[in-house]
């Protein structure tokens, strides 16, 4: 039997199919990991989702209202403690926030160091001066955003997405909105898998490099197919809903049950938020 020719060179740049496949599998792995974390045993995982939504919302409000750097830093420590008590890997939790922060908030905070008027703190070459007020403003922004993002991530990592959505009903979010969000979440994964399969089948038939024009054509064709598939799917799903009695006004129900420890922790979180607002006023 003829053997396959030896690999003569390794391609340095991955083509668009390979990149898309890598991104898709990364997204799917991430969601699987988040779901596993939400099912682990831990403090926040054991609480009623409504308590978590309200408690974390109270802490988020406290972060926004507080005018003291020390108090916001204190709330960040609270977020870290909650993550630790909920068995979330600390390295992952911290990195997830701080690695992305410079790209988004950092870009906005950077000019504040230099353009905010105030007493000079550090003199830099080229006549640039970091002012005390500028440093304070930028630090406020960075700390506020990182603490808020950490708290939001905490909620999502410790609660199955379905629980988060249903808990929104305590905030008087309409049932129809919750139903639509739930279905969107459910079908994103189906379309993700479909896209993955489409790209895999494409990859198995590609030899060598594709030209940029071919890549563009292929992506446009994939997007078109996906759109027509999702249109067909949506009309079929609507029929399936009608078949089981849906008449335009969805009725949903949660199976949440408040236990004493839910009240206790809910109270503690709201109290911590109130204390932070008072201390940082």
């Amino acid at each position, binding site marked *: 039997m003829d053997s396959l020719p030896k690999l003569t060179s390794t391609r340095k740049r991955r083509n668009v199919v390979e990149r898309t496949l890598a991104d898709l599998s990364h997204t799917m792995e991430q969601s699987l990991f988040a*779901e596993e974390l939400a099912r682990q045993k831990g403090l926040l995982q054991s609480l009623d989702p409504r308590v978590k939504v309200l408690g974390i919302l109270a802490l988020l409000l406290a972060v926004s209202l507080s005018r003291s750097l020390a108090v916001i830093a204190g709330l960040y420590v609270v977020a870290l403690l909650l993550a630790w008590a909920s068995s979330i890997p600390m390295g992952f939790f911290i990195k997830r926030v701080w690695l992305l922060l410079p790209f988004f908030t950092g870009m906005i905070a950077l000019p504040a160091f230099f353009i905010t008027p105030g007493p000079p703190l550090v003199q830099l070459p080229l006549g640039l001066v970091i002012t005390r007020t500028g440093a304070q403003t930028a630090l406020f922004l960075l700390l506020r955003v990182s603490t808020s993002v950490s708290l939001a991530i905490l909620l999502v990592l410790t609660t*199955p*997405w*379905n629980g988060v*959505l249903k808990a929104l009903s305590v905030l008087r979010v309409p049932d129809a909105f919750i139903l639509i969000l*739930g*279905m969107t*979440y*459910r*079908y994103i*994964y*189906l379309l993700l*898998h479909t896209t993955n399969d489409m790209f895999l089948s494409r990859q198995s038939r590609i030899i060598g490099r594709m030209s940029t024009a071919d890549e563009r054509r292929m992506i446009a064709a994939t997007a078109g197919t996906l759109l027509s598939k999702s249109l067909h*799917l949506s009309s*079929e*799903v609507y*029929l*399936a*809903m*009608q*078949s*089981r*009695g*849906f*008449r335009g006004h*969805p*009725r*949903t*129900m949660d*199976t949440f049950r408040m236990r004493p420890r839910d009240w206790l922790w809910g109270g503690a979180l709201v109290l911590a938020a109130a204390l932070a607002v008072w201390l940082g006023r």
Partner: protein
Amino acid sequence: MDNDLVFDLQNVSFAYEGGQAALDSVSLKVKAGERLAVLGSNGSGKSTLLKLLDGLYFATAGEVRAFGAPLTEEAFQDEPFNFAFRRRVGLVFQDTDVQLFSPSVWDEIAFAPLQMEMAREEVESRVNTALAALRIEKLRDRAPHRLSGGEKRRVALASVLSLGPEVWLMDEPTTGLDPRSQAWLVDFIIEQGRTGKSVITATHDLGIVELIADRVCVFDEGHHLMADGTPKEILSDETLLLASNLIHEHRHAHEAEIAEHMHHHIHVVPQEHGH
């Protein structure tokens, strides 16, 4: 008026928008408690028929009656009629990804009882009974997109079972199932028939027909009802099965030897596969 009739179709035709015909002048009566298999190759109109029977599509010509009342778009505008019909008839879609649209198994099974405005305790009790009947209690908080094909099919059945319909419509229920799940599904259909429910199953899996049906209707590729009889009559009529594209002549291995001549036969019962 025949009181034990569940469905009565008189010269029913259906065409999709754009004029593509799916059923052509079909007349058919289904009695209460009857187990009917609808056979036909892909595109012969089986799925369309089930959607017409479930009041999801409406005949472009002819008349469909269910429990004595005509199934029309106007009839379904009437809330009490819609409500009463949906409680009595349940459709299991071929594609479980269509059937399972909720973010969790529990929500999926609770969907129908909730739309029927049942009390909280009643909904919970129906969901728990359906979970236990299909032995999927462990899946209750899982997301449908994380389930295997067999598990998805069980949840799809549970989502209709919680409604407690007296008529089951099943569209290609064995598609994509492994032999063990197929055998289990056949048992489920047999059980529904035994408890007096009407079960109409669209399939092209000839191996299960004798187990799940007392009567068989065959559709041809021209979307006509070409035969109606007992499973024995239909399955022994090779000319009919060849004409409706349900069997084909082929060559394959018998006891490790490839057959020399072209021949055809029916593959029966998933687990006891043999011929």
